[in-house]
């Protein structure tokens, strides 16, 4: 059995879709001869040729705009942002053109815009961002944040096949750190479905992306003290699996909302609202948020370490909530 890394899983997913469907192509900066800054498109130029693996100028808005145009003509473009941080430069095309075409005039825009997000590698304020909420707040888009190699592959395939625009955030910290043995069949992971990573009875930790591993490690530690965490990995944020969230809360009656993204306006707020609106009667304690503080992502190790939610944060808050 061979283990497949998270980054390789994404590459395989795109590759297989390109083999199966000649409407699928990739475009972006350095995706061709270089195979992408993180090698997600490595080997594709040789295999699929320069008209399906397109090196572009440094024009994020142009890249997404071109993807939209091609998608309107029936193609299935997969646009790479070299770092997710640079999606800021394509914000207008994504939120105004891609997101609203179907609603306005019934024209689907089946594009995928993907790129590496997240911190933990000392990338500083412009190579570590978590831009998901800018797009979750934009109806017409879908947003996914896989945490495992299996999901990375299954979700990129679903994203490519989806008739609507999908923003796909891959966590660069996980690229080579998580691996698993992947089934050889053509599996997909549906957009909008969460996954329970650990069954537990005392407290639900609802999270996504790299924080899933923080939650699981905290759960291991708390196990020793007899505190039993449930860990729910959302996998998709727009749409998100409301049923799974409410079910977990109704079971444990206590909730920790965990994400790496900035606190204010983060996804935890949306979850808190849903829970306190629809599971109010089931709550035996306050809803607790564990998130990055309201600052840019700092660069120096001690600062970034402080910035990122930690196992010890989850352990501390879980203990407080357990004792509540």
């Amino acid at each position, binding site marked *: 059995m061979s283990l497949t890394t998270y980054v390789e899983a994404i590459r395989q997913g795109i590759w297989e879709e390109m083999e199966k469907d000649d409407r699928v*192509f990739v475009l972006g900066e350095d995706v061709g001869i270089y195979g992408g800054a993180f090698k997600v498109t490595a080997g594709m130029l040789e295999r699929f040729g320069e*008209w*399906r693996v*397109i090196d*572009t*100028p440094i*024009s994020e*808005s*142009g*890249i*997404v*705009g*071109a*993807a*939209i*145009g*091609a*998608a*309107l*003509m*029936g*193609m299935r*473009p997969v646009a790479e942002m070299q770092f997710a941080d640079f999606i800021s430069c394509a914000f*207008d*095309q994504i939120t*105004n*053109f891609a997101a*609203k*075409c*179907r*609603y*306005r*005039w*019934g*024209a*689907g825009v089946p594009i995928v815009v993907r790129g590496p997000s997240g911190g933990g590698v000392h990338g500083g304020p412009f190579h570590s961002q978590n831009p998901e909420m800018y797009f979750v707040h934009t*109806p*017409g888009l*879908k947003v996914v944040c896989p945490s495992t190699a299996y999901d990375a592959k299954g979700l990129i395939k679903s994203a490519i*096949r*989806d*008739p*609507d625009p999908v923003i796909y955030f891959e966590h660069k910290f996980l690229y080579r750190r998580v691996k698993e043995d992947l089934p050889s069949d053509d599996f997909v992971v549906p957009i909008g479905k969460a996954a329970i990573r650990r069954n537990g009875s005392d407290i639900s930790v609802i999270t996504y992306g790299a924080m899933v591993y923080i939650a699981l490690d905290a759960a291991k530690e708390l196990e020793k003290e007899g505190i039993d965490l449930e860990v729910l990995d959302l996998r998709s944020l727009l749409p998100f699996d409301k049923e799974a969230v409410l079910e977990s809360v109704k079971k444990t009656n206590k909730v920790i909302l965990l994400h790496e993204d900035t606190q204010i306006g983060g996804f935890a707020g949306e979850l808190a609202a849903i829970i306190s609106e629809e599971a109010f009667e089931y709550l035996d304690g306050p809803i607790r948020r564990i998130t990055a503080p309201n600052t840019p992502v700092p660069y120096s190790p001690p600062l970034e370490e402080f910035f990122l939610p930690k196992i010890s944060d989850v352990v501390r808050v879980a203990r407080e909530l357990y004792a509540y």
Partner: protein
Amino acid sequence: MKSNTLTRDAAPVSLPPEKTVLDMLYYMKLTRELESRIERKLYRQGKIVGGVYVGRGQEAIAVGSCIDTRPDDIVCPSHRDMGAYLIRGMSLRTILAQYMARKTGATRGKDGNMHMGDLSKGLIAFVSMLGDNVPVATGIGLSFKMRGQDRAALCFFGDGATSRGDWHEGINMASVFKVPVVFICNNNQYAYSTPLERQMAVENVADRAEAYGMPGEIVDGNDILAVWDAATRAIRRARSGGGPTLIECKTFRMTGHSAHDDAGYVPPELFEFWEERDPISRFERFLTQRGFIDKSGIGELQHRINHEIDEAIQIAEKDPFPEPEDCLKDVYFESPTEQ
């Protein structure tokens, strides 16, 4: 502005076939009448919902450049290109219902005025953000090139839109990829209240083409034959793999920016200067001189147009508004049968 592009009133070396020539007149007059009804009648009667922007005086540009497009070509109009919708086959009723926010409008009431699209007619709906349609047109051309199709895309924008970053990114990529797209600028010399010299430090929008290694051509946008001539050459070039072209059509906005702007900031002489160069009367003069049509023929044509529009207004006025709950529909793909 090179004044010769303004006085030029002769036909190009080769004339289009008679049917095309008469269609040109029909569509220019239809555009003019339709927009006049919308702006000066229906809007004032309070029957139009939201703002109104018309292309009075600019009719030759959309009509002259779209008249010879093929059904499988794609057109990305901007906000003063009504002729494009008409030529591509959008019905008067659909257009009027759109402006009156009815369920039968091009966007079923979801969006307003010239924000109309219909893939079956090769029409891409304009978004307000000026210049956004430029990279999109580039991507459309890219898809043609990838699939070895000999289709062409036409992309319209105003002089003001050329200051947008998206315009630059889209034009540059179009040239690097040599895509079959014809970029057509309605240079009406103002962006809202802002004259050209406050927008750019060059005399012509076409001067920008060179910076992208793209051929740029200046034409008298009020001379429909000149527009047709340049556009057909550029479209032929595009189909045959020659890559994109930028065509600058010199014209003038003979109204305010929108129905509620009196254009007090425009020197009256400019309106007079351009009134004399009205694209429709010029073309009528040319056609009568050449014996394509006579005064009474023009009168009948106008009569027919008025009648078509009257009918369409009557129907559209009776068309239903959307149901409130339609607000929730079509944010995402719904029927499971697509793909």
